[in-house]
């Protein structure tokens, strides 16, 4: 430990409070209003697909495009997940096969 434990606890407490604050924000913003504004209801409805799409890209953010294999293992594995899921519609199967494919690829072809 580079710092004393009281400082460490303070840092952890601040991180906990700030993390909760970001999640609390929308609820606090609209807690008083009896009915939620129509535009916010609309956003609540359409944001999930947009956010999930953003999270897929977020997972790929550390892929280095300028250096081999520049995300090919990720791309192949994602294609497999999409294909298997469109075909079998079994969440665990799609995730399991995709992850296995990725783990094998980074150990063999793209090692």
């Amino acid at each position, binding site marked *: *430990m*580079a*710092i004393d434990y009281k400082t*460490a606890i*303070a*840092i*952890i*407490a*601040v*991180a*906990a409070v*700030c*993390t*909760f604050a*970001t*999640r*609390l*924000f*929308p*609820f606090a913003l*609209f807690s008083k209003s009896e009915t939620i504004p129509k*535009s*916010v*209801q*609309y*956003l*609540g*409805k*359409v*944001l*999930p*697909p*947009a*956010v*999930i*799409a*953003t*999270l*897929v*890209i*977020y*997972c*790929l*953010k*550390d892929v280095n495009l300028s250096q081999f294999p520049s995300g090919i293992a*990720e791309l192949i*594995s*994602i294609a497999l997940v*999409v294909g298997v*899921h*469109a075909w079998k519609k079994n*969440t*665990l199967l*799609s*995730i399991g096969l*995709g*992850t296995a494919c*990725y*783990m094998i690829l980074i*150990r063999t072809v793209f090692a």
Partner: protein
Amino acid sequence: MIMKKTLKFAFQKSLPVLFGYLFLGSAFGIMLQQEGYNFVWALFCSIFIYAGSGQFLLVSLLSGGATLYVTALMTLLINSRHIFYGLSFLDKFKKMRQMYPYMIFSLTDETYSVLCSCSAIGGIDENKALFFIALFDHLYWIAGSVLGSLMGQYLPFDFAGIEFSMTALFVVIFVEQWKSFKSHIPAVVGLVSATVFLLLLGANNFILPSLIVTVTVLMLCKNKVMEKVGGET
């Protein structure tokens, strides 16, 4: 009877998160251990902070002895995407009464995604089901981080690449929403905006600008989206 069915439903829904959280959690536990903080620290961090990327950031804040201002600012920034998640659950969580604060606290990327893809089935208590999904995910994360700091280097197998299961989870939910959502505009806007901003701003700064632009564009084409989606909004 209802309780048993509800628990089973929640467990099945949470199962895709299990492996990812166990291993990402243990990666956090190992990192924390290497900085000289044992499993008790990992346990409390994972109970009270409960954020993937946020806790990885925390390790570097602890090792560098960051000031509280820097800690606050960095944590707010790295978690800023969460301010948009609650918008989809404003009414739903409120109806959950005493579970309301916990549902807000535990709304991670993964729990948010699973809850979004969750349509209730007959014979279960929907509110309790949502609560147990959130709770199970949290427990996986806590278990992973404690196991990681306890076993750390003694893992019998090289698990590199297991983190792809989280990517796969988001891809699966993306495919499901692509099929069930009547308008593809939100998914395409999110995908394009995130890709463009990632290329423009790089890995560490893209997500908040990307989400702000996504929200703006979705507001601008509200009429067009609502034409397809329908509903009273």
